[in-house]
């Protein structure tokens, strides 16, 4: 490739008009979503269709739907951006997102499905016979749900503004919010199952096809990676102009991380706090290791505790199907997660100019920008690829938002209305309430989403994971495997873990925002930046900063310890029929213990 082509590359995208291909593919995704929503709305008749898709979703469909729901805007666009920005350390995100499912499979999926509760608050009340506990669990579902919704909404606003340059950010949020709310209100869980399943395949197609074309043109994954020289490499990196099939690399700008730091473990992501404290690389290394461990725990345990994922296990017809579904989910999302880092690696070599900006104007849009290179080279083919990636981005935030909307709406319609406000309501009344709640939650999500343009997608998702890891995961894990748990123990552990994690991540994000603002002001007035009290404290105590930024390392054990200690202290309140509950959680469904348990509980009423 010659210099003219480089100039063309540099001029790509920001000032382009609306590409008809991008517009067409995005429009098709939206129209198909609405059409499928209407179609399945016709078959969603009973309340069970609305809440758990009639519990009749086949393994293949359910696995595709869970995967579709799970692969959010952060997965589709954010991971590529993070790998481009931080290199090796960011690889932990996709790997742990995908492999966290194993924990769910090993310890939680089967028992939860066997118990036959409806939602997580149902499980909380069913396991502990405590309506108060249901209320606490509902609050957590709504809280984690809204926390996780905001970045999806941001993805919608950013992508739409990218497709239609000049379109205000909030319009994208409103359009996507309205489409999905309509779908959920019309068809509930059953309505969105098909939509999410199809959206998984759209995303898979949208991430894999462009990457294969790009690798064909610009060289493979390993080849592009080999251009980054690690400290252990003896030969200098090959920087060369290349023809078709050859890897090439543009010179890296000042702001880009250096090769050795980028390709090796313990790079910019995990050493930030230690660097700010002025530690030497050798001193920083143990802290980076600690950061990595904490990050791994947060994502792996957080995956097993996300309410919108857990609710899907109730849509399996039996426990064995729940396990098979999880197996397929791991395969489907595992295959998917191999691709976004490839975008990051190619982006570093081909679009280093993105390092100049941050967030959605910088590396975060590498997935949308890379196919544009093909458009510059091959015309229409590239436009088609760009169209496909945009369709994938649409599918990403739409499907995740659908799932969140269903789980939050279920919490309101089933747990708050159906259990707390009007326990005597009929299934029809609850179904009607489901529709109204969907509109309410959808409205609130759009409102919140329109306010978060300045925040970082991945960071917010990370926070949601850390909170889920320290609250729901210990609750579910301990409730399923330890019969000595009491309501007080469970609630104390869950609340302390969750609130500590929340407090810490909030504290670090506030200090980050403060540092960012004051640094910008200092730069403007040409003075040296003086850290405020909080940031000065972090600089002096890098270990504390890491433990606050990634609290899972201590918050998860804290929650579990509190659960054990408080439960032991209140062991008199262990539910009387705990053996039966444990049998329902663990005995093979063929033994019919669940039916017996239900009959026993219904007995006096009949």
């Amino acid at each position, binding site marked *: 490739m010659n210099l003219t082509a480089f100039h063309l590359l540099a001029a790509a995208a920001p000032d382009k008009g609306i590409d008809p291909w991008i517009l067409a593919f995005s429009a098709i995704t939206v129209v198909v979503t609405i059409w499928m929503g209407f179609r399945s709305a016709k078959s969603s008749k009973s309340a069970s269709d609305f809440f758990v898709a009639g519990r009749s979703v086949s393994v293949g469909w359910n696995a595709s739907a869970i995967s579709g729901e799970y692969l959010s805007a952060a997965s589709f666009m954010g991971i590529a951006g993070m790998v481009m920005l931080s290199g090796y350390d960011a690889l932990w995100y996709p790997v742990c997102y995908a492999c966290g499912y194993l924990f769910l499979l090993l310890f939680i999926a*089967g028992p939860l499905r066997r118990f036959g509760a409806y939602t997580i608050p149902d499980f909380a009340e069913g396991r502990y016979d405590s309506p108060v506990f249901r209320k606490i669990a509902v609050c957590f579902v709504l809280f984690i749900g809204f926390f996780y919704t905001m970045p999806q909404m941001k993805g919608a606003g950013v992508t739409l503004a990218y497709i239609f340059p000049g379109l205000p950010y909030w319009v994208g949020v409103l359009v996507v919010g309205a489409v999905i709310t309509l779908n959920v209100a019309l068809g509930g869980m059953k309505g969105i199952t098909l939509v999410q399943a199809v959206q998984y395949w759209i995303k898979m197609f949208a991430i894999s096809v462009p990457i294969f074309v790009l690798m064909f043109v610009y060289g493979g994954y390993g080849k592009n990676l080999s251009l980054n020289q690690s400290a252990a490499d003896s030969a200098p990196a090959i920087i060369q102009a290349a023809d078709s099939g050859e890897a090439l690399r543009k010179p890296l700008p000042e702001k880009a991380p250096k090769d050795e730091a980028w390709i090796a473990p313990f790079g910019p992501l995990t050493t930030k706090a230690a660097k700010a404290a002025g530690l030497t690389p050798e001193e920083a290394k143990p802290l980076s290791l600690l950061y990595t461990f904490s990050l791994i725990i947060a994502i792996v345990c957080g995956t097993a505790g996300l309410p919108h994922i857990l609710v899907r296990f109730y849509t399996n017809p039996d426990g064995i199907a729940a396990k098979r579904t999880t197996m397929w989910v791991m395969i489907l999302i595992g295959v998917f997660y191999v691709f976004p880092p490839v975008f990051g690696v190619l982006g570093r070599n081909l679009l280093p100019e993105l390092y100049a900006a941050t967030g959605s104007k910088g590396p975060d849009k590498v997935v949308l920008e890379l196919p544009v290179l093909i458009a510059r080279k091959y015309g229409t083919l590239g436009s088609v690829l760009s169209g496909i990636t945009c369709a994938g981005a649409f599918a990403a935030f739409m499907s995740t938002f659908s799932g969140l909307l269903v789980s939050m709406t279920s919490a309101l319609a089933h747990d708050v209305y159906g259990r707390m406000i009007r326990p005597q309501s009929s299934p029809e009344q609850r179904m009607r309430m489901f529709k109204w709640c969907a509109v309410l939650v959808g409205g609130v999500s759009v409102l919140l989403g329109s306010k978060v343009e300045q925040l970082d997608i991945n960071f917010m998702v990370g926070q949601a994971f850390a909170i889920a890891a320290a609250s729901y995961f210990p609750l579910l894990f301990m409730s399923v495997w330890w019969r000595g748990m009491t309501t007080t123990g469970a609630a104390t552990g869950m609340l302390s873990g969750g609130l500590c994690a929340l407090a810490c991540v909030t504290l670090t994000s506030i200090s980050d925002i403060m540092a960012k603002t004051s640094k910008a002001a200092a730069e403007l007035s040409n003075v040296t930046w003086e850290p405020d009290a909080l940031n000065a404290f972090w600089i002096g105590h890098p270990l504390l900063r890491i433990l606050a930024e990634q609290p899972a390392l201590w918050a998860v054990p804290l929650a579990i310890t509190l659960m054990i200690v408080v439960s032991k202290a209140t062991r008199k309140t262990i539910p009387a029929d705990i053996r039966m509950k444990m*049998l329902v959680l*663990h005995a093979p469904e063929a033994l019919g213990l669940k039916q017996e348990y239900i009959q026993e509980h219904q007995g006096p009423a009949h």
Partner: protein
Amino acid sequence: MVLDGKRPAPCFHESFPPLSGETHIPMSDPTHDHTDFIHSEEFLQGLMSRQLKLSIACATAFIVLLFGLPLMNYLAPELMAKRVGGFTLTWLILGVLFFPYVWVIAKWFIVRSIALEEAEVQVAAEGNKRKP
């Protein structure tokens, strides 16, 4: 059974009947006499410990790689930076090979746990015969 006069524990099937596709072989005592084998402490403990052992064995295989990889990066950086087809060894393991490794663990767990469930049903049937 009434739980101290509290509202019965919620169960999905309170409002909705079980699906027609759900097959149950009712092996527990239809009169809900909780003295038979499958309601015994012995059965429950055996059941939970066998399941937990399997889960922990699989989790250990997972955790060894999950926490072992950062540790190897820390202890043997040169080895982990060796190039394999353009990748550094650690990048190849984390970015590509980790996924199939986890699939193998998951597959093994599912096969074993389904076999375990079948065996449990057998144990329950035999136990009930022994202890009428």
